């Protein structure tokens, strides 16, 4: 008890509140690490336009532009819906066709290095390029992106990034071309000179950097949980949580051991874990095992020719775990901010509700591939209600 008292003195809390303090000094220091006030948008040395307002403005226009698709109907915003936390309510994304994985919300991603459920991109701008050329998402090609930018955004692009190549020369720059597209797009790409391919890749990279600049303006907002923690530390008006919410928070930090992966102000460790979830829509999806290989080979990664990073500034990529067996079917640990508003859950929307998620963590079944990292845990009916009540304090408002 005495150590608790001194802990509170050290934290400046004694005398700050009239109600008895329900948390130990150690718990308080943990709560503070979960507070949104501890969150900072990291620099992105690979994107020199990351915080450029004109780039963000251009990126916003591109983000909502449905012409960036094979059928003229799919924009980034089609799946990343602004009024739905920049995700959708589907188990797997729906663009030109049906994808294999759940659409991820954008705001938490702006604070993280690894993108996609498998971390196959190491920056927001590299991420933005992937869906454009995915046949079931935008079904577009980078060559078409360059043409569209020249036609509709030419002066804004050139004011930021410098002159566009002479895209009107259709012998050098065909209508559709990409190294990862369908047969027609690939053969058109292969017929281009390496120098012209690099020019188009440069436009494509800049396109991604503008979208990333826009995405970085989409801040996470404080939740009731943040207001509660702020109140504990005298950073705002005191806010009370209900008994269920308080008990749920205690379970989250204690018995549930949720903090082991869902820690820090994003309530994620930014890593990858195999939690033994069922196969789901993407079937035998190896997750991070394939993702790390793709990230290392990506010409648009932090160490690549189109990155603005200097040597030594790509630590996450340079020190990425390359071993694939240990990362088999590991998927990104998602942020829990807004989680209760974001059903369905897991990388392929395997679980329709938080109740089903808790069922899974209680059972901790064997993984369909690789090795699950989780241990079974048992919650009674009241504890389940309390945990879910706590997760609702993370709702976006």
């Amino acid at each position, binding site marked *: 008890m005495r150590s608790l008292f001194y802990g509170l003195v050290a934290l400046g809390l004694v005398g700050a509140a009239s109600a008895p303090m329900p948390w130990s000094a150690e718990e308080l220091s943990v709560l503070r690490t979960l507070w949104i006030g501890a969150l900072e948008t990291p620099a992105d040395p690979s994107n020199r336009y990351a915080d450029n307002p004109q780039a963000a403005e251009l990126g916003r226009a591109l983000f909502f532009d449905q012409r960036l698709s094979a059928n003229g109907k799919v924009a980034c915003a089609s799946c990343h819906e602004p009024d739905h936390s920049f995700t959708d309510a589907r188990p797997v994304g729906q663009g030109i066709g049906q994808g294999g994985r759940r659409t991820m919300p954008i705001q938490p991603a702006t604070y993280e290095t690894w993108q996609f459920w498998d971390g196959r991109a190491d920056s927001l701008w590299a991420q933005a390029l992937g869906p454009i050329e995915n046949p079931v998402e935008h079904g577009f090609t980078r060559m078409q992106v360059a043409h569209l930018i020249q036609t509709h955004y030419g002066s804004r692009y050139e004011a930021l990034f410098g002159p566009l190549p002479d895209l009107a020369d259709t012998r050098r720059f065909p209508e559709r071309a990409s190294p990862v597209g369908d047969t027609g797009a690939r053969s058109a790409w292969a017929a281009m000179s390496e120098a012209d391919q690099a020019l188009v890749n440069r436009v494509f990279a800049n396109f991604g950097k503008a979208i990333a600049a826009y995405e970085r303006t989409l801040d996470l907002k404080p939740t009731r949980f943040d207001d509660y923690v702020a109140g504990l530390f005298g950073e705002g008006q005191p806010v009370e949580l209900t008994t269920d919410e308080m008990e749920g928070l205690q379970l989250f930090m204690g018995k549930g051991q949720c903090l*082991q992966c869902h820690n820090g102000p994003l309530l994620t460790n930014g890593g990858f874990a195999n939690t033994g979830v069922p196969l789901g829509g993407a079937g035998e999806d190896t997750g991070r095992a394939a993702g790390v290989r793709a990230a290392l080979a990506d010409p648009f990664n932090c160490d690549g020719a189109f990155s603005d990073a200097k040597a030594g500034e790509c*630590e996450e990529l340079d020190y990425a775990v390359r071993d694939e067996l240990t990362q088999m079917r590991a998927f990104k640990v998602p942020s829990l901010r807004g989680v209760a508003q974001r059903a369905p859950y897991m990388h392929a929307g395997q679980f329709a509700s938080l109740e089903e998620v808790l069922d899974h963590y209680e059972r901790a079944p064997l993984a369909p591939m*690789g090795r699950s990292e989780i241990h079974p845990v048992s919650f009674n009916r009241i504890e389940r209600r309390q945990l879910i009540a706590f997760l609702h304090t993370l709702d976006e408002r």
Partner: protein
Amino acid sequence: MWHEQIDGAETGSWKRLRTIAAAAFGLTLAGAAAAATQVRDPALTRTSEQGQFRVQISSDASPIPMRRIHSWTIRLADDGGHSVERATIKVDGGMPEHHHGLPTQPEVAATETPGVYKINGVRFSMTGWWVFNLDIATPDGRADTVTFNVTL
């Protein structure tokens, strides 16, 4: 305590974690209540398993950061206390209780100071018991291993 699965694939680092855990289990069976504690000895200055080296490690950032890449310093001496230069040091490790290795693949580089090396690229993703294994080899043929426990 071990939530085993039947599928199989194991890496060297995982095998080592299992070996450590098996050793811990064996010692506990031997009846020494202190054995588990001993296995999780937090000392950051240790003698390597075969007694070849004295090794000290320390985080260059204090407090040890979470979710952020940072470096550690290794001070390497022989059994007589003399600095050991030009050693090749490999790092692996992980969390024995959670079936996973390190979240990054740190690399060791020599510094200009004899016997001082840097572990670059360390990142911790959660609190709890972490293990670092250092495989040390010198050009004159000495080789040994040392294990550190870091509880965050």
